[in-house]
């Protein structure tokens, strides 16, 4: 049986809808390989164990479910921060709205241009981390992305980047289907802060591959936009060298369907990876954080901190795994996922997992969900704080542990004010 024989009808329909895979330039082989792989695995279905808590159909169907463009008058996210701004509108790069990408310590290019060349370093990363991340669990939507991505940013960080690079994803078309793929290489000792914001499209499939050299550092903060009807599936694949650092934080506010996967491989000794998220949802909200951290080197630290606030029937999902390989001694692994349920209709589904083959490790994980503590609420109210304000104080306190994961106080303050705004709009 030919490997390229599609396994299910869904994958055929979606692949037909997406058209031909680009077959020229330096990324052609990676794309062809990804297409073969996704044809072989098929797309996720509800029967897949890895998609048990999240219905993949709206992410895999050929026709994009419409998502009304959400109008709001918020100040732009991270607006106060000096940055190099790159803008995509419904998945299409907007050069006019973007800054000149010339910046000391970093080379910024577009995937759409890079792939036309015959020779480019991106070839060594594009699809490679994604492919490695397909075992032990298949991630077909990431392979699909590698095959069909129309554009993305290719970053080569050679020193300490002069300022953060920000990518804004605007959503202006209610049936847009965007597939973006970013490739980031951080050289030994180099340092990058990447900010991402915005819904991106009616449906966004985004992959980011990040290779961090020895002693390199990657700081990442993203906010997925307030659009209620948008859908997104994102995969972040990171490979960490010796003594390197990876820190990623995601804020998700609203959205009918979000699946964020983060796949981290600690391959050099003494590396540190922190991944955290705060999400808040009201009503028709489904948010899934799926994290897979593999320790494959000595004395590495990983940390996962996820907090979700859910109300009016919102659903939160967390699947987090720490895999410690046989020789990854002195691993320090930590994982916590918690949900605050503001009413009885909302639900939190969690699957925390540890798989440990080394004997000298410290790993812990915990998962809780619960309502606001009534004694604390009464204590605040007894001092005159009205119930709505007291509830907000408690809710922000609940989220604080996740927000604390952000190193930069200005960024943390910005995210906190968004969360305060979201809560304030829900006061009845």
């Amino acid at each position, binding site marked *: 049986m030919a490997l390229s024989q599609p396994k299910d009808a869904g994958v055929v329909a979606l692949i037909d809808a997406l058209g031909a895979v680009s077959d020229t330039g330096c990324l052609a082989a990676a794309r062809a390989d990804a297409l073969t792989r996704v044809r072989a695995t098929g797309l996720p279905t509800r029967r897949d164990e890895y998609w048990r808590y999240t219905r993949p159909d709206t992410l895999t169907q050929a026709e994009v479910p419409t998502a009304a463009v959400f109008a709001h008058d918020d100040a732009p996210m991270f607006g106060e921060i000096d940055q190099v701004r790159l803008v995509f509108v419904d998945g299409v790069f907007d050069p006019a709205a973007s800054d000149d990408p010339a910046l000391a310590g970093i080379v910024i290019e577009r995937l759409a241009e890079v792939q036309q060349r015959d020779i480019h370093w991106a070839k060594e990363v594009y699809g490679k981390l994604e492919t490695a991340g397909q075992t032990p669990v298949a991630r077909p939507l990431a392979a699909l992305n590698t095959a069909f991505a129309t554009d993305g940013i290719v970053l080569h960080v050679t020193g300490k980047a002069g300022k953060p690079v920000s990518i804004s994803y605007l959503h202006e078309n209610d049936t847009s289907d965007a597939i973006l793929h970013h490739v980031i290489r951080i050289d030994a000792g180099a340092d990058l802060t990447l900010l991402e914001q915005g819904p991106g499209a009616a449906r966004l499939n985004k992959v980011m591959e990040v290779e961090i050299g020895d002693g390199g550092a990657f700081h990442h903060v993203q906010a997925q936009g307030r659009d209620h009807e948008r859908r997104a599936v994102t995969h972040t694949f990171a490979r960490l060298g010796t003594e390197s650092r990876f820190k990623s934080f995601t804020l998700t506010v609203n959205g009918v369907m979000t699946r964020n996967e983060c796949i981290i491989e600690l391959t050099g000794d003494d590396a540190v990876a922190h991944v955290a998220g705060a999400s808040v949802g009201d009503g028709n909200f489904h948010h899934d954080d799926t994290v897979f951290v593999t320790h494959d080197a000595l004395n590495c630290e990983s940390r996962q901190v996820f907090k979700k606030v859910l109300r009016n029937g919102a659903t939160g999902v967390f699947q987090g795994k720490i895999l410690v390989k046989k020789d990854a001694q002195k691993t320090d692994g930590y994982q916590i996922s918690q949900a605050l349920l503001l009413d009885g209709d909302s639900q939190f589904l969690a699957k925390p997992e540890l798989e440990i083959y080394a004997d000298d490790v410290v790993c812990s994980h915990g998962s809780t969900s619960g309502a606001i503590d*009534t*004694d*604390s609420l*009464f*204590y*605040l*109210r*007894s*001092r*005159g*704080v*009205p*119930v709505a*304000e*007291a509830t907000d*104080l*408690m809710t*922000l*306190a*609940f989220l*604080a*542990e996740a927000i604390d994961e952000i190193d930069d106080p200005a960024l943390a303050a910005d995210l906190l004010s968004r969360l305060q705004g979201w809560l304030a709009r829900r006061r009845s």
Partner: protein
Amino acid sequence: MLEIKNLHVKLEEEDKQILKGVNLTVGAGQVHAIMGPNGSGKSTLSYVLSGRGGYEVTEGAATLNGTDLLDLEPEERAAAGLFLAFQYPVEIPGVGNMTFLRTAVNAQRKARGEDELSATDFLKVIRAKAKDLQIDAEMLKRPVNVGFSGGEKKRNEILQMAMLEPKMCILDETDSGLDVDAMKLVADGVNALRDAGRSFLVITHYQRLLDHIKPDVVHIMADGKIIKTGGPELALEVENNGYADLLEERV
């Protein structure tokens, strides 16, 4: 000031009557003490007055300066001037002590139609009051009561009271857990607040606190009722003889 009439309270969840007809009137500017055996209903009374959930008033009334307390939300009772220093102050991780107090002070001012206190004015006031109670600045920055020692929690209650300037202050065993010096500090804090327009209901097991905060009236509570009311000498009697005689008298 505070008037409690024939107050009957049971637990909401079970058929357990806890207060069985409490009558108590505290006049403006007065200090009343309530003593009584463990489990007699003293904390329940203070919780019901401040509006904690889980209780059901089956009979009776409670008013603060003529306002029906039992009809109000807890925050409205606070804005009306009621304050409870908790027997067991609650730890609230993630909520800063300072943020909490400023939110509380300003919420009460707002509810009373007064201007909010600016951040700098608030800081000035709280620093001075914290100093009086020997609460250091570092403690103010910590989350509410988290990691505070028993005595620190109690002093923090008094700091909150000093900041909120309530009219009717209920102190539920504020002396328990305090060392001798801290007790003096807390008593000084309370005495500094004593004034013709402010009343205190001091729940305690020991005469010691009442040496510092001189009560006008002492009540003995047993089995959900006030069984005896008298002057300061009643507290001394309890201190010396326990409750046995008083309970017997009642039978």
